[in-house]
């Protein structure tokens, strides 16, 4: 056996245990969840009896007819949209300023990143307090109190306890998006900063010699070069957003009328409070499909062609 072959064989055997663990704990467990999601296990007793009855896609049908789950899907869509937009716009904007290497820019860079080190649970707890509306107008709390102190009482609002909506967009999501963006925008900024620093200096200089203005430089040179970063940021933030749980759980619960409810929160309640294992599993599988729709093409395109 050649050295090369020996090495390859060793490599395979080293990976094998991890592959087996992932095989069981990811792929087999997903299969088990799919199996549960197509079963009649919607009470503790049906689970205990252990008798498996296949009910097809009935649990999924029930879910899609369920107004709360419909709200969840709309919330996920809008939350993802605004969370993504917030992180990317803020990320590009801040990265471009930090990249100018002003005095103290590394201080600001560290400052904008620090929320990343903190748990979503802490973020949710603290922002939950900041955005708690209190009783307006008599005893406002949090931001509302600050607004009153500043004399801007007309800006006071119910925040995440508001039941207002525009179309299918629940306005109560706004404070949640702000909290999430606070946490993750520094991350996106760091990604863009790395991207900006990888752009060859000659390229920028050449464009400047040709008389490109700052804005032209940004749109014609930097943005096209940063496209792969934008894609990565969308994948990272997007898949995170589709399964967001801890922030919502710590910050708003689900809000009145489920205005800030998400599939992950609904799943948690169905599984651990109501013992509706089949329904909960169906929610989990729908979440998996949403995430896979984003991730699989990305992984496929990243690893295709390599041998």
């Amino acid at each position, binding site marked *: 056996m050649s050295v090369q072959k020996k090495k390859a064989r*060793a490599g395979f055997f080293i990976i094998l245990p991890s592959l087996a663990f992932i095989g069981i704990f990811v792929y087999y*467990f997903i299969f088990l969840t799919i199996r549960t999601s197509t079963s009649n296990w919607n009470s503790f007793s049906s689970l205990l009896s252990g008798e498996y009855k296949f009910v097809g896609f009935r649990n999924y049908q029930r879910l899609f007819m369920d107004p709360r789950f419909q709200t969840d899907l709309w919330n996920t869509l809008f939350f993802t949209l605004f969370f993504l937009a917030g992180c990317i716009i803020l990320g590009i904007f801040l990265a471009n300023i930090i990249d100018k290497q002003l005095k103290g820019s590394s201080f600001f860079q560290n400052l904008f990143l620090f929320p990343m080190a903190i748990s979503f649970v802490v973020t949710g707890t603290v922002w939950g307090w900041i955005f708690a509306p209190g009783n307006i107008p008599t005893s406002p709390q949090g931001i509302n109190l600050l607004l009153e102190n500043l004399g801007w009482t007309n800006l006071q609002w119910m925040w995440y306890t508001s039941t207002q909506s525009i179309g299918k967009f629940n306005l109560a999501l706004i404070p949640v998006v702000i909290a999430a963006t606070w946490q993750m925008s520094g991350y996106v900024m760091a990604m863009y900063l790395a991207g900006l620093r990888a752009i060859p200096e000659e390229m920028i200089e050449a464009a400047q010699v040709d008389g490109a203005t700052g804005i032209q*430089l940004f749109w014609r040179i930097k943005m096209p070069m940063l496209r792969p970063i934008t894609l990565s940021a969308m994948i990272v933030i997007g898949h995170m957003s589709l399964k967001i749980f801890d922030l919502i759980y710590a910050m708003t619960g689900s809000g009145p009328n489920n205005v800030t409810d998400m599939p992950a929160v609904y799943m948690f309640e169905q599984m651990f409070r109501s013992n509706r294992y089949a329904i909960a599993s169906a929610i989990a599988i729908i979440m998996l499909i949403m995430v896979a729709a984003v991730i699989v093409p990305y992984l496929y395109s990243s690893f295709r062609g390599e041998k």
Partner: protein
Amino acid sequence: MAEKSNKTSLTIYYIILALFTIFYVLPFYVTLSTSFKPFEEVSISNMWKLPSKISFEGFKEAFARLGPNLKNSFYLTIPATLISAIIGSINGFALSKLRFKYSNTVFALILFGMFIPYQSVLFPLIQFFQAIGLYGTIPALIITHVIYGIPITTLMFKNYYEEIPNELVEASAVDGANIWQTYTKILLPISIPGFVVVIIWQFTNIWNEFLFAVTITSDPTKQPITVALVNLAGSQVVQWNVQMAGALIAALPTLIVYIILGRYFVRGLLAGSVKG
């Protein structure tokens, strides 16, 4: 690369940075100022004011309530972090230096585990722990974090080892070293920066994790601090200064890591954003 900026635009940049500073520091200000307030000063009407005198009442109370959970978090996070880093290092070595046919496909299959919503494996996982009698324990959480940490730690070490020239590994084979010796004698000694990044990343993630923590441990005395913090916030009787002190205690270990080893933290972040 820096562009030339004139004085006016410089001022504008600083104003923008100052405004954003307010946004990023705001929750920190609220947490810090509230947690140091004495009980009698914690009313909603002075939430934006600084404490008139520094009081540790909030911290005392928060420590009394969350102390055991803080300990749990350390018991959980330290072993889980170390084990998953070691596994990642070995896997990364195999996938970057001992490539086999379809090793990239295998890697992609493993990597997928990093992105799945853990809800999709949660129920079987709990049943598994119930079957082996570990449900509700910290070791169950350690196992969970080690297994679901395999994809990310493997990815990070694979990327790290790919920067190391193959000749180095090949030279040791010529010298008669076997694969294990090559790993321990050649690769491991130069892996320390890689380990630092992976350990920081895993420590932060495992410390901050909530879904597994809340579903695998139901006994309050065995719960990590993230779960205990939410429970603390859920009970209405608790004073705000206690809650904010609790939030600070829960955030402090990862914040310290970030402040001391920020450079490596950023590297971990960028490695975690998957460049394939």
